[in-house]
């Protein structure tokens, strides 16, 4: 009886694992409602302006969006940099003093809530930020 219970327990564990592995195959995709381009003035430790250009699917600039910029290093264990970008108009947004706190590779995530209520997110690699 105890042996059967033990078996059941181990089997349940493995089924759970299998379920997770199956679920893992179910990836998620994002709808691309807008195009975003990003430009970093200087890939250097310290503060630097970062500019974002936001266009809709017809290529028209999108103003009035709420745009946040997030900076992560590629290695876990560091606090991210979270900045709200200023709307300069004509689809241009700027973080005037984005801080690169450490040398290395970064990933910048642009997170935009568009005026039409839609949301779009894009990630950009910023390699080799130097001292």
């Amino acid at each position, binding site marked *: *009886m*105890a*042996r059967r219970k*033990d*078996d059941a*327990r*181990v*089997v349940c*564990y*493995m089924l*759970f*694992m299998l379920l*997770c*592995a199956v*679920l*893992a*195959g*179910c*990836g*998620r995709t994002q709808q691309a409602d807008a195009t975003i381009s990003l430009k970093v003035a200087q890939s250097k430790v310290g503060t630097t302006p970062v500019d974002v250009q936001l266009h809709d699917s017809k290529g028209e600039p999108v103003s009035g969006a709420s745009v946040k910029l997030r900076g*992560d*290093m*590629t*290695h*876990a*264990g*560091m*606090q*991210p940099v*979270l900045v709200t970008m200023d709307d300069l108009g004509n689809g241009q947004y700027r973080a005037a003093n984005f801080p690169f706190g*450490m*040398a*290395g*590779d970064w*990933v910048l*995530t642009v997170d935009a809530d568009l005026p039409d209520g839609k949301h779009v997110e894009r*990630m950009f*690699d910023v*390699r*080799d930020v130097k*001292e």
Partner: protein
Amino acid sequence: MAVATQRRFDLLRVPLVGRFLRWRHSRTAMQTVLLVLAALILLDGFAGIQIAPRNLAGVLPWVQWRGLLVLALLIGGNFFCMACPFMLPRRLAKKLFPATRAWPRRLRNKWLALALLVLFFWAYEAFDLWASPLLTAWVILAYFVAAFVIDAFFRGAAFCKYVCPVGQFNFVSSLVSPLEVTVRDPNICASCSTKDCITGRSMKSPQPAAHAPAAALGIAAIGVEQVGVGRPASFQPGCELWLFQPQKVGNTDCTFCLDCVHACPYDNVGMLARSRTDELADDARRSGVGRWSTRTDLAVLVVIFVFAAFTNAFGMVAPFYVVQHWFSTMFGPWSVHALFALLLAVLPLLLVGATAWASRMLSGTHDGVVALATRWSYGLVPLGFSMWLAHYLFHFLTGALTFVPVLQEFVARWVGPLLGAPRWDLAALVPQSWLLPVEIVALDGGLLGALMVLYRIARREHAHEATARRAFVPWAVLVVLVFAAGVWLLLQPMDMRGTLRG
């Protein structure tokens, strides 16, 4: 007749904690918790955001697990092998398959595990595992599959003893742990005829005749009282890593599974305190291991463990990329691999070999360099462990709380905002200014421990004190140089580059 051991601190006798550890299902309970975490890591690693700081597969294994691992080894012992979730598929495998084969005799050493450990360290650098949740998930999945497959075919804990790279890291690190699983009173073992600690025992039918020697000592055989009419029948295995308790010395190959504790009918196995340096200078014949002085595979494992600690840390500081750039002018796209081979193979071989040669010349011994290096290498363990400790503690102390917002975001993505908005302001446990002193103190401890052990080895090798001191000097120079390199590393600016998405 052996003298009974003095009373030492025994974790298994501590209220609550000891009771929990003595509970037959404590290991399963801990493994279950880690299994659930592993499942979450796999899910997020395969299907989540592929940025390590925002993924459970990027955060939990490389920040929290590594940090808690070295802390557990420093404060207690090999508790992570005790709680290893890879043992659950292993148990399933042993239920589904006969597992009657003996592990091949040619592979009953550490060479395979060592090769896999080197492969792991190489992959960590070559593929930036710490920056890739997807690759991390694949590595963890591979571990589960490997544990299942190997222990489905082979008897005992072959995966743990001869294959698992993480296990080898834990085994070497636990050589300086303050606790060991060992007998409480050797007199009881001397009169035991059943050797349950290694053969295991059936809990179904007590065997009074077998326990007669214990009864003669006035000791009730534990388990007789526990088994009665209506209680479930089960077999309690003995040590599956073939460590016979009365002849076990220290923590080599011990996974803290406590099978011996549960199997011993006299409750004569405990988790006792010990001096951190005793084991490293002891060349006694160890059950299931033999003499360290004859185990070149073990010595090489130790050397790799030590130099990998410094190589691993070097890979995260700015000067590494200067050196790598210089290497690329000679080796092109193979520069990382060439640098890795230099730091983890060529340099250790040269340094340890030269040190052993110098020690041989100064002491006038006629033993070969390899034999000498084998006997002395264990003295390097404290310094190697201290560098791992400094490195992993750095990441742990700067990012221990980062799992909170990552878990919040993970739950929000799969279920809903049950845990609230992610607290991305949570990260460090201690102020930044504490980090360097903590790391330097750790390295200091490692240097001190290494010097103490090496001197004890010197006195073991040479009865004449002056000869021992001469033999000791080259090894002392080596550890001081390696220590200095470690301090220099810790003072360098970090430059963390890694695999980018896609």
